[in-house]
């Protein structure tokens, strides 16, 4: 879909484009959690399953929203390349951090591009849930600090 918006304006085209990017990140994250779950130890499986379920739920919300708008929801790829080999539980937790951070960035982009308040509500709720999950995964991965001052924002 072409973006006919004038530069610098927010409208449903900018919003839908950002939502499509978020949907792409959600598709990838859901796929990625399959890799995470395969490499985690038993003690972290519950967190992985809960994270994947939460992402699937939000993904389905975004698909529904874009479909209702006839805004061409992007489809999931068959597979995605990994940023690093996932060979251990620590690798798996680190991948989960990458997945959640990627989704956070996409939701911040939605906040930046959204025209409608209801869309910002969706993005805010999803961004918060994503960062809370990411805090848990950073701890599991042994990363410090486990929190971020500005989740989803590009680093300066």
């Amino acid at each position: 879909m072409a973006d006919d918006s004038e530069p610098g304006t927010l409208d449903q085209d900018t919003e839908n484009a950002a939502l499509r990017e978020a949907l792409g990140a959600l598709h990838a994250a859901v796929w990625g959690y399959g890799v995470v779950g395969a490499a985690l130890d038993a003690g972290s499986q519950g967190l992985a399953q809960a994270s994947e379920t939460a992402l699937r739920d939000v993904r389905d919300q975004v698909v529904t929203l874009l479909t209702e708008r006839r805004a061409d929801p992007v489809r999931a790829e068959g597979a995605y390349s990994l940023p690093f080999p996932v060979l251990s539980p620590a690798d798996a937790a680190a991948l989960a951090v990458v997945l959640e951070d990627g989704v956070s960035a996409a939701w911040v982009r939605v906040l930046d591009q959204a025209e409608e308040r209801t869309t910002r509500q969706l993005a805010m709720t999803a961004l918060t849930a994503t960062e809370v999950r990411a805090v848990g995964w950073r701890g599991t991965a042994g990363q410090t600090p486990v929190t971020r001052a500005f989740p989803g924002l590009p680093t300066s």
Partner: protein
Amino acid sequence: MSSPLPSGPRGFSRRTLLAVSAAGLAALATGCTAAPADEREKATSQQADELGAQVAVQETVASAFVAAGAADPALAAEVADLAAQADEQLTRLRAAAPGASSSASAPVAGAPPAPETRAWLRAQVATAAASHATACLDQSGARAALLGSIAAGLSGQDGRLA
């Protein structure tokens, strides 16, 4: 069935997961809203007032870390990274709301002694997170993105303090 791990440009880190155009958010990364010529970044007076109010909210939570540290030195050491992040957030918010009046010492009730200090601090952080999240909804563009990010960051701190 497709190859499970295809190589190429469709990687997590470069395209799909981080599909964020730098243009719209780059200004936020340096603490500024977008250029004045950018029409969408012009705040209404109400939005400007509300962003200024969130500066005060952030001042309160930053002060809460100081008060909690005074009440419980062991906790101060444990949450030093969180306190630093709260200060970073305050700096960024002030830059985004240059018209906001800054209070030299935001009013915050005294922190209770240990072992109640942590729960008190957690409540302060959670309150600020909820306030920023609500305020985010009535902002737009870079201001909404900044407030939303800070709200999420504080929610993460809330979880860490649990």
